[in-house]
Every structure is written in C-alpha cells, then in structure tokens.
C-alpha cells in the first residue's frame, strides 16, 4: 500500500478514472473504471441483442407452431400452438431476466456488449464476484430501465387527460433519477451496483510489444551522448518519446528529433537518420533515468531539478 501510494504520488498525476485496488498480495492493480459513455454504449448494444433475440424467439415460436400444425390434424393444432405460447412466455421471461445474469456469471464477467467495449463487472471490495451480487445488480434494472420505460410509453396519456399527464411527468422525473444515477457519482455506479457492491471496470487486453531498446542496439555505436545530454529530460518526456517511436510517423519523428537536437546541442550529420537518432537517444535517456531511479531519484519531467 505505502509503496504503491508513494509511486503514484511520485509519478505523473493519476488520471481521474484510476482507482486504487489492492490485491490480497498487497499490489495495487490501479483499475480504471468504465466511463458513462462506454457503459451506455454497452447497454445499448445489449438491448439491441436482446431485442433481436426476442424477435427471433417470436418468429420461431409462431412459424414452428404454424408449420407443425399444417402437417397434423386440427386437434393437434391447438395443443401445438399452446406449447409454442408457453415456449414464448418462458423464453421471454428468461431472456429479460437471465441475459445479463448468465453472461456476467461467466469467467469474463461481462455481457456481449460489455465485452465489445472492453468492460467487466468486479466486486468493489476486491473479493469474489458472487452470484448474489450479479443477481442483485441486474434485478435492479427493473426500476432503472423498465420503470422509466413504462412512464415513457404512458406519456401518450397526457394528450387526453391533463391530470394523468402531470402524474406521468412526475413519474418520469422520479424514475429518471434512477436511470441517470451513474452520472451523479464518481465511480459511475448504477443503482444496481450500489446494491450489489460491484462496479464496472475496464479490462483491456494489452499486447506485449517489443522493447524499444532492442531496436536501438544496432545503432548504439554511432551515437555517444554526454551525461548532460542524456540527462536533459525527465520521465514525462521519455514516455512521449516512447510513444513517438512506437507510432513510427516520419513527420512527427523528424520534428521531435529536431527539437531534441536543439535542446541538447547535437550537430546533425549528413547521413544521420531521424529514427536511429531517436532510438539511440531513447536508450541513453532511459538508461540514465533508470539508473537514477535505482538510487531513489524519480525525475518527473524536465523541470524537475532532482
């Protein structure tokens, strides 16, 4: 905890969506919570998937009832259509209540919509995501989604009945509060999240890219920076340089290389390539900063005197 806290305060200021999340082993995983926009997008995707599933279910039930009945006698027809009716009723119930619960209970803890947006559900206290929590957070959709929807659909009443219209408006305001609940708290918790003790976090799948030092190795011989030159920048600038090198955009690299040459007073040779220069300087800067880091100096940026 203390180590994590120290490094957070020493490094660049943490982005606002980062939350401390300490595992039982004592390491802070620095989870990032899902933003309101992503959450809404994931929900809309899920709603579309659900709608498609309901339409398919309805079509299947009605078609198969019709097709089977046309084969058999008339007495069979009644039986079959009632079987399809049951399939539809129960299927609809399972879809409406089970879709979110079942998907969030898989190892990925995410519905297809959340999966597409790189989100997952997690227990806020760092413990296991229990079945009760998943069930509770999704049962609450009843007042977050379906209740406002009912009032919205009832808004036609207002045209004919002024008192009823006002009541519907009041209801809409009241239930709108539940639906928009995530906008009014820092962790973007839904009503369901508060009741279940969960939150929704980003779970990106980062790939391990090559170490930029590998690329620099070949060219290292050509460039020899002095200690002053290698120490002109801090960690913040190193990260920017890393980004530039990974993107490999020739124009940006040329501009950045010129800025660095200007700053450290490096004379450009005729045959010197910008990317080789930047890679070599990255290696030198990182080497210098990491060595200082081992001695306990974390130089935040170029204005940091340490």
């Amino acid at each position, binding site marked *: 905890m203390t180590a994590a806290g120290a490094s957070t305060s020493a490094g660049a200021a943490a982005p606002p969506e980062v939350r401390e999340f300490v595992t039982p082993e004592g390491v802070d995983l620095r989870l990032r919570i899902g933003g309101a926009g992503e959450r809404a997008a994931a929900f809309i995707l899920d709603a579309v998937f659900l709608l498609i599933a309901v339409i398919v279910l309805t079509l299947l039930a009605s078609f198969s009832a019709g097709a089977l009945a046309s084969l058999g006698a008339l007495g069979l027809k009644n039986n079959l259509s009632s079987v399809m009716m049951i399939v539809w009723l129960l299927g609809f119930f399972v879809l409406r209540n089970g879709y979110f619960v079942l998907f969030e209970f898989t190892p990925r803890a995410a519905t297809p919509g959340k999966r597409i947006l790189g989100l997952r559900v997690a227990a806020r206290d760092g413990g296991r995501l229990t079945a009760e929590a998943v069930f509770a957070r999704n049962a609450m959709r*009843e007042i977050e989604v379906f209740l406002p929807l009912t009032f919205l659909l009832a808004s036609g009443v207002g045209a004919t009945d002024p008192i009823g219209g006002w009541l519907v408006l009041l209801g809409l305001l009241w239930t709108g509060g539940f639906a928009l609940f995530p906008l009014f708290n820092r962790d973007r918790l839904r009503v369901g999240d508060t009741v279940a003790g969960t939150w929704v976090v980003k779970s990106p799948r980062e790939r391990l890219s090559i170490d930029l030092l590998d690329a620099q190795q070949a060219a290292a011989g050509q460039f020899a920076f002095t200690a002053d030159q290698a120490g002109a920048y801090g960690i913040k600038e190193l990260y920017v340089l890393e980004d530039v090198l990974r993107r490999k955009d020739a124009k940006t690299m040329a501009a950045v290389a010129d800025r660095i040459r200007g700053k450290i007073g490096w004379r450009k040779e005729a045959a010197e390539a910008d990317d080789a220069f930047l890679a070599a300087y990255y290696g030198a800067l990182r080497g210098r900063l990491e060595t200082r880091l081992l001695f306990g100096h974390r130089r935040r940026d170029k204005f940091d005197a340490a």
Partner: protein
Amino acid sequence: MKELQLKSRRFRAEREGDWRRLEGLLARVERGSAKSLTDEELLALPVLYRQALSSLSVARATSLDHSLIDYLESLSTRAYFFVYGARAGLRQRLAQFFEHTWPAAVKGLWRETLASFAITAVAAIVGFLLVWNDPGWFGGLVPGGLGAGRDPTATTRFLRDTLYHSEGKASLAVLASYLFSHNAQIAIFAFALGFAFCIPTAFLLAENGLTLGAFFALFASRGLAFQLGGWLFIHGVTELFAIILGGAAGFRIGWRVAFPGEKTRLDAAAEAGRAAAPVIAGVVLMLIVAGLLEGFARQLITNDYARYAIAISTLVIWLGYFYTPRRERRPS
C-alpha cells in the same frame, strides 16, 4: 552482452517466458472453461499470477518502459479475476443454495417478513371491511381486468361457477406459465422498488392485500367465503408467501439505504443487497411452484377439502424449510 546493459531489459528478458505462458493460459480459460486446463497447468496458474504481480511491482519501481507496465497491469488484472473468481461447479453451488444460502437468507429477513406480512394482512382486512359495508368500494379496489366479471353485480351462481370452472387441458399450461412470469416479474419489481426507501414496495403490498380483502368480502356476502378460500389458498399460500418475501427483500434494501447506521450508505446498501438477493432468486422458484399449482392443481382439483389440504401442506413445507433451526455451517 554489453556491460552497460540496462537492468530493466535483463529483467524483461528473464521473465518474459513466464508472462507469455500466463497469457496463453488465461486466453484459454477466458475462451472456454477452466476444464480445458490440465492439473499441472491449473496448479501453475496461481504461481504464474504471483510472479506477474511481483514483476509488476518490480517494473513499477525500476523500469521506465511504459508499454511494459501497461501490459503487466492488464495481465495481472486478468489473472487476478481468474484466481480470485468463483469457480465452484454449478451443481455444488446449487446444492449450497438450497441447503444453506436460501433458507438462511429468508431467516435473516424475519423482521422485514413480519412487517410485509402485517401490511398485507391489514390491507386485506381494510379491503374486506370496506367492501363488506359498501359494495360500491369494490370497483375502486380491484383493477378492472383482474375482476373478469366477478363484481357485485354478478349473480351468486356465476361467482360459484368461476371457482370450479375448468379450462381446456392444453391451455392450463399456458395459464401456468403466464401466471408465473407475470407474478415473478412483480416480485422482482417489489424488490427493486425497495431502493426508493421502502414506500413503493409498501404500496405494492397494500394494493395486493386490498384486492384480496375485496374479493373475500364479495364472495362472503354470497356465502362463498369457504369455497373462495380453497380456490385461492391452494396456490395462494405459496404465491402470497413469495410476494411477502419479495417485499421483505425490498424493505431490507430501502431501510438500510435510508438508515445505514454506523456504515456508509454505500456499504450498507451493498450489504443489504447481498443479504436480500438469494431471497429474490428463491422467490422466483416459489412462483414457479405457485404457477404450477394455480395452472394445474386448482383447475383439476375441485374438492374444497382437497384444496385446503394442499394449501395447508404447502404452508407447513415452506415454514418448515425456511425456519427449522439447522446446524451452523462452518465458514469455509
């Protein structure tokens, strides 16, 4: 190897193999189930997870390779969710639910259950007295669709028929599944509404009770109270119990959100939600039973005494299942 080689680079070269191995295992686990792993791999996973965590700590302290730290954070997070995730088998979890979780949760809500029973009972008595003294109240208490012709203007003969009328056999199952999904949705709704400080849940329960009382008054005024009791309670014991429990679960949440006590409001809400959720899951199961009783048993059994016998035995079964003291489970 150059003498000046960076420590962070050597560190990465040494550990990278383990990270890749962990990444491969996680990808397989996330795609399918944990079953696809061999015993050896399953044992290796927690070890690799701790290694990744320690790598992350080391990298944060000594490496300035930003993409490496991002990678390790994402890898450790994924591994964390697997290692600390729930992985008990479905059958085991179901057994645990019926054996312990559900009855314990219901028992834990006994105060709220009493409150929600009291609201239903008082509302039923009020509904009964209102309609008994002035049948004009009936229309106000019972929503139009629910009465289905059963109102004070109906003949006694018609009312008696509704109690013993049996529909076509094929449609019984439809009726059962319709009743189940409708009632279960209401129970989940009662639970969710609890969040608004209990009041809407209380309204829902009171409305249910008033309707019940009004029906009783109507049938009692024609001397059919006993028969209505059989018709209603054969499934109603299970159904009313389920709705009362749904209300109780809602009350727990609303009460803890309104009066969190020593805890923060957020913690209190989460605690109440976890205590109440198994009750609601169970309520859905109870309503399946109620739907079957209502759809089949009530339509097929028309003897009043047989109906009462079923009603009483369901009551005994539910009460016994929920409230019999059982041995405390050791926390595992």
